[in-house]
């Protein structure tokens, strides 16, 4: 059976700090907001929804205790009939939710599933859920470093300079600015409103359209002190012994921004779509997961993309547009160079360097970004991929119908 995408929406992304517009909005309100909007703009009978699958990385505090179920209850009040599940595959969680929903639909176990993601990084800081990755015993047995060091390690091994990653970041900002200027996200962004219906935020507030190469050149590498003074760079040598010195090239300006936001995607099979009176926008062609060495950590999109293409019986050239999450500039750069993908087809409206990366929501947001752009350009096929903590990779290929 084929899983179709009927709609995909998202909140704007607010700066993920105490001065950010969405700091006073609880994550459950971000998420239930998009669930309400998804229902309303599709006239969705939510009693027909078999499950709400939500990606969320830092499941503690406001985001703990299965936020998916309580957001669905708060949003829909539909006789309490919609279950919910919250999934964590680190930065892939939002796309994992989509893939999981697609798999349930494609298998026939479910007919209609809402997928999505939420992350309020201003209210629930990264890492505040603890975890085995912080356990020294796991360090000895498995090995892991903070992602920024992984990113710098890839740049070191690939011989990519600070100037090159900075230039990539400037290009991301330039593309983002052009996209915002031309209202290219109009179809997907739903404003965040308060209890009075007043708008809290209706546009992405992280981009820095005025960013310059000179200005960026002045930023201190974010992981230099950790890497050099606290000795974290040495942890890479168990697997990369030839790397005597990690060259630290990533900083706040060429890495993904910390932001708040939520997204929702409506998936169903053909029959259920028809009976709900909905028109499909795209179908899922293939999904893929991969896992690689955890210290370098962020190269997973390469293998995940290869698997997704193979499952779909496609080549790189068969894909019209790509979204590869800009967790760090080197991630899409490495991925493009490994797979021979033209930058002109990748992150055409900018990426997380400009807009930010609300961990659990990003995957679902990238899906709706690529779908909107395929429609705008009247192209057919898009691929979304993200690097994932612990050395994993994820990818999804969609095709317009």
């Amino acid at each position, binding site marked *: 059976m084929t899983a179709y995408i009927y709609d995909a929406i998202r909140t704007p992304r607010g700066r993920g700090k105490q001065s950010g517009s969405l700091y006073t909005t609880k994550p459950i309100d971000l998420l239930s907001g998009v669930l309400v909007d998804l229902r309303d703009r599709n006239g969705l009978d939510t009693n027909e929804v078999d499950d709400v699958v939500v990606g969320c990385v830092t499941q503690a505090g406001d985001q703990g205790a299965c936020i998916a179920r309580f957001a669905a209850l708060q949003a829909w009040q539909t006789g309490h009939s919609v279950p919910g599940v919250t999934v964590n595959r680190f930065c892939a969680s939002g796309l994992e939710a989509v893939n999981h929903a697609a798999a349930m639909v494609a298998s026939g176990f479910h007919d209609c599933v809402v997928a999505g993601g939420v992350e309020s990084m201003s209210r629930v800081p990264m*890492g505040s859920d603890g975890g085995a990755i912080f*356990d020294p*015993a796991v360090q*000895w047995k498995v090995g892991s470093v903070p992602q920024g060091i992984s990113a710098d390690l890839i740049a070191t091994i690939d011989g990519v300079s600070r100037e090159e990653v900075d230039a990539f970041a400037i290009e991301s900002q330039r593309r983002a600015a052009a996209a915002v200027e031309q209202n290219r996200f109009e179809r997907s962004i739903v404003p965040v409103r308060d209890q009075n219906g007043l708008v809290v935020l209706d546009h992405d507030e992280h981009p820095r359209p005025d960013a310059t190469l000179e200005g960026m050149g002045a930023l201190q590498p974010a992981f230099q002190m950790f890497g050099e003074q*606290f000795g974290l760079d040495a*942890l890479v040598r168990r697997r990369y012994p*030839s790397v*005597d010195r990690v060259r630290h090239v990533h900083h706040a300006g060429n890495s993904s921004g910390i932001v708040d936001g939520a997204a929702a995607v409506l998936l169903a099979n053909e029959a259920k779509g028809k009976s709900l009176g909905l028109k499909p926008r795209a179908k899922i062609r293939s999904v893929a997961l991969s896992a690689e060495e955890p210290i370098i950590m962020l190269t997973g999109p390469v293998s995940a993309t290869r698997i997704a293409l193979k499952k779909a019986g496609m080549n790189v050239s068969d894909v019209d547009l790509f979204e590869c999450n800009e967790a760090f500039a080197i991630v899409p750069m490495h991925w493009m160079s490994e797979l021979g993908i033209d930058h002109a087809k990748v992150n055409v409206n900018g990426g997380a360097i400009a807009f930010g990366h609300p961990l659990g929501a990003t995957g679902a947001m990238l899906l709706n970004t690529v779908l909107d752009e395929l429609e705008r350009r009247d192209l057919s096929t898009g691929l979304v991929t993200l690097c994932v903590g612990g050395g994993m990779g994820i990818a999804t290929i969609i095709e317009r119908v």
Partner: protein
Amino acid sequence: MSDYQNTAASVVLDDGIATLTLAQPGGFNKINPELIEGLTGALDYLDTVQGLKGIILTSGHRDFCVGADLDMVYGERDPANILGATQAMNAALRRLEQKAPVVAAINGSALGGGYEVALAGHRRIAIDDPRLMVGLPEVNLGVFPGGGGTQRLPRLIGIQAALEVILQGQMVRAPKAVKMGLVDELASDRDDLMAKAKAWLLANPKSKQPWDDPKFRWPGVRPGSADARNLLLAASAMLYKKTAGAFPAAEDALSVVQEGAAVTFDRALEIEGRAFAKLATSDQAKDMIRTLFFHKTAAEKQKGLPRVEDDGFRKVAVLGAGMMGAGLAFVCAKAGYDVVLKDISEGALEKGMAHIDGELKKLRHLDDAAKAALRAKITPTVDLETLRGTDLVIEAVFEDLDLKHRVIRETEPYLSANGIFASNTSALPITDLAKASAHPDRFIGLHYFSPVEKMPLLEIICGEATGDDTLARSLAFARKIKKTVIVVNDGYGFFTSRVFSSYILEGAQLVAEGYDPNTIEWAARAAGMVVSPLQVFDEVSLALGVHAMTEAKKYRPDAEHIEGVDLVFGLVEAGRKGKAYGAGFYDYEGGKRRGIWPGLAAMVGGPGKQGSLKELGQRLMLAQVAEVGRALDEGIIRNWRDAEVGAIFGIGFAPNTGGPLAYIDRFGLPALVAELDRLAVEHGKRYAPSQLLRDMAAKGERFFDA
């Protein structure tokens, strides 16, 4: 008169205060079942005492207690028994600290398990005696504190401060211990100690351990907090940088501190005990305990070596005022000898004395007058006449046979009757040097390691004619200057230098074969080597390497020629003579290493190929082990203990192995001989196993009992 007495402990009651004195037979308290049963018996007795106000825990011996009974730990291979022993100790200490307020009256050194016993006190008071040390040195023997130390100390002084002590195996004197929080208070002498202990108990009748207080708050970072996570990540990284993953004891200690901090105190002890049981029964712990405790202690005590009580030396002369000569003069003066520092150049003498002044500055416990008196014991001179009546001459001049012969001839006449001439050569055969001596029976090799003020080892080399009395007096001298000795027979490079050269040359060889230099360096560290081969080659200098290799050819004309040697000659020709010259395998900037010289790749035909850490590390280890095998065949080693102690303390051979012979045992002799044969075919005859190794393998023998 005691109110209670058993084999290991006694109790005296006075005014509701019980003084519980640990005093096992034999002059030392050691953590073993006897001590724990003794303590338990005393606690049973205290259960019967009415109106107990407090307990003073002290020792009846000079030391408080300097740790576990290592004979017992060494011999135990069953983790269940080790776990049982830790449980018994934990149970006794828990009973003690929960019975009444307790002061640990630390009358002498409290180390390892001994300090862990003191941690069961609610307060620690120590006598301010410069000989008194406290701390937790366990990781240096391949284990970690297994008697509650990894749990009590973090709860007492905070996770960060505790990790510093535990992971570095720190031992400190009492005043520093107070600063670090390991001890609460100092006392001037035993009476003061007991008075202060009693006063504290009377003033704090409701005292309990912080971890037994329901309102307990962690000092420093709170477990589970973001600060704690950052701290543990940084601590893991720092540790890994230092150990390259070769020393699981410290890694496990860090894990146990972290895991234990997340649970209740009593269950934390269980976490500690299980991890300790695994580590203490591991091969690595056994090998480290054998060499770094038993062998080292035997070497320090010169067990099995000829003994005279006194060397009979009053006046010592050192020839050559370089860093080694000046350092030696300082070491001898510090041990009480009158020292003449002789050189042919006034400039060299000035530099030498400046070096000595630098060393004097470091002696913070001496006042200016004492420093001046110490300096006055050293007479710098260019005049041979000043040497007249010298009882021991140690020459530390350039490594050149003719020069040394000349120096021996011109100096010997100034020796006192029965005086000894020693050479500090690192390689030239003593028998050859002694050919210039008028009395070769009083000629010996005393090979020191640089910097001599710090390096603990002295390799004593007996030439063919060296007399027993000369050896015995040299050994007495070694005791006085506090060096750990190995005694070896003569042959080019003796023991340590030849093994060391096999190591650094194999490093150069791997570079010449095209392996990536940084990977070679890390492979050595990951195998446990203290310093990586190219780094240390640069430090001893490639120029000296070239000189030594040229000399070596005279003595070992049939030695295998390897490309690594050509590479080193090439580097020297290209002006890259080592760290002191600002360029070697590495680039240097202001004396600091700046990474492998990028031009090295071109010298060996292209960018480095990757080898696995295991493969490269094993080649570096096995090249040394094969050389050790030949030294055994040639009779250089008189006592297997010396191969272990010499390799680890002389040249930084991987301490995690316990030494080259323990390495062989752990590898398994038949497997090792097969592997060496394979490597000899593939890479050259320097790998070939020696006859002794073959014979032992055939007979199913080992060097040390499993």
